[in-house]
């Protein structure tokens, strides 16, 4: 299954259904507990990570916390 993650076309290993939660685990995404996921242009509520299913052709963005700046 092909999806686009942060602008990069990505081939997922098997053609099985997976939720956002399982995708985060499978890809070992950093800040996994806190990352914001945008699925096809919509920001998902964290509660929806368990139920939203990843489909062929989906466009997914992971948005990360970044502090930095003053000190």
């Amino acid at each position, binding site marked *: 299954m092909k999806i686009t993650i942060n*602008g990069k076309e990505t081939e997922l290993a098997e053609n099985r259904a997976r939720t956002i939660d399982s995708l985060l685990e499978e890809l070992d995404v950093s800040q996994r507990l*806190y990352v914001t996921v945008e699925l096809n242009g919509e920001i998902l509520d*964290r509660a929806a990570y368990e139920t939203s299913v990843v489909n062929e052709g989906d466009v997914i963005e992971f948005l990360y*916390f*970044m*502090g*930095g*700046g*003053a*000190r």
Partner: protein
Amino acid sequence: MNDQQIERYSRHIILKEVGGKGQQKLFDGKVLIIGAGGLGAPVALYLAAAGVGTIGIVDADDVDLSNLQRQVIHFTADIGKPKVESAREKMQAINPDVKVVTYKEWVTAANINSVIADYDFVIDGTDNFAAKFLINDACVLAGKPYSHGGILQFVGQTITILPGQSPCYRCLFPQPPPKDAIPTCSQAGVIGVLPGVIGSIQATEAIKFLLGKGDLLAGRILMYDALGMKFRGVDIKRNPNCPICGEHPAITELKDEVDAMTVCDLKGA
């Protein structure tokens, strides 16, 4: 404008998007920079050079040797000096026309409204999520446009927030991460030039806002990867469930909240 000012700003004045009128808008403009560190440094230097008439700068810290690798407004001789004083000296040395207002304090729920009230545009150049969420909440509730900036290691991000019109920081990140869950620059490192790139973009947004020219970085988060040398913009919509600017906001007043946050609080959000 006197002859000296016409010469000083001549490269602005010949731009059709600026001109004498635009330069006057910059003189009349008031920008608040929260954090006189890596991000605040280029913002303060460029806004002073540009002739933004009133620039506020907020930071309770003193200059430390480890700051100098990236906080280019502070010099070796400034170590131990309040950052806001060190910044003011350089800004006024660049441009004596500019009024610099210093606040040697941290922003808190108790003081932030009175600090931001006098300004047209706010720059978030802070390093911690308590401050970033507080700035977002205060600016959204006050209807004050602001620029968010974040940096870590070799990556940075920035977005401009026009309250009520474009998505806010909580539309993207409804709740702060638990304390110490996300590494800071002092823990994880940061390449010194990175805040120069992100801060310069934040300064550009402030200037465009004051001029009323161009398209602001609103509704789109810009991400910069210095190692890959790539910029990417991701379009973001307002989140109807946003806890502060959504359809049924849970946050209606400011509070200092982050230190008490736990993972359980975050999951409950």
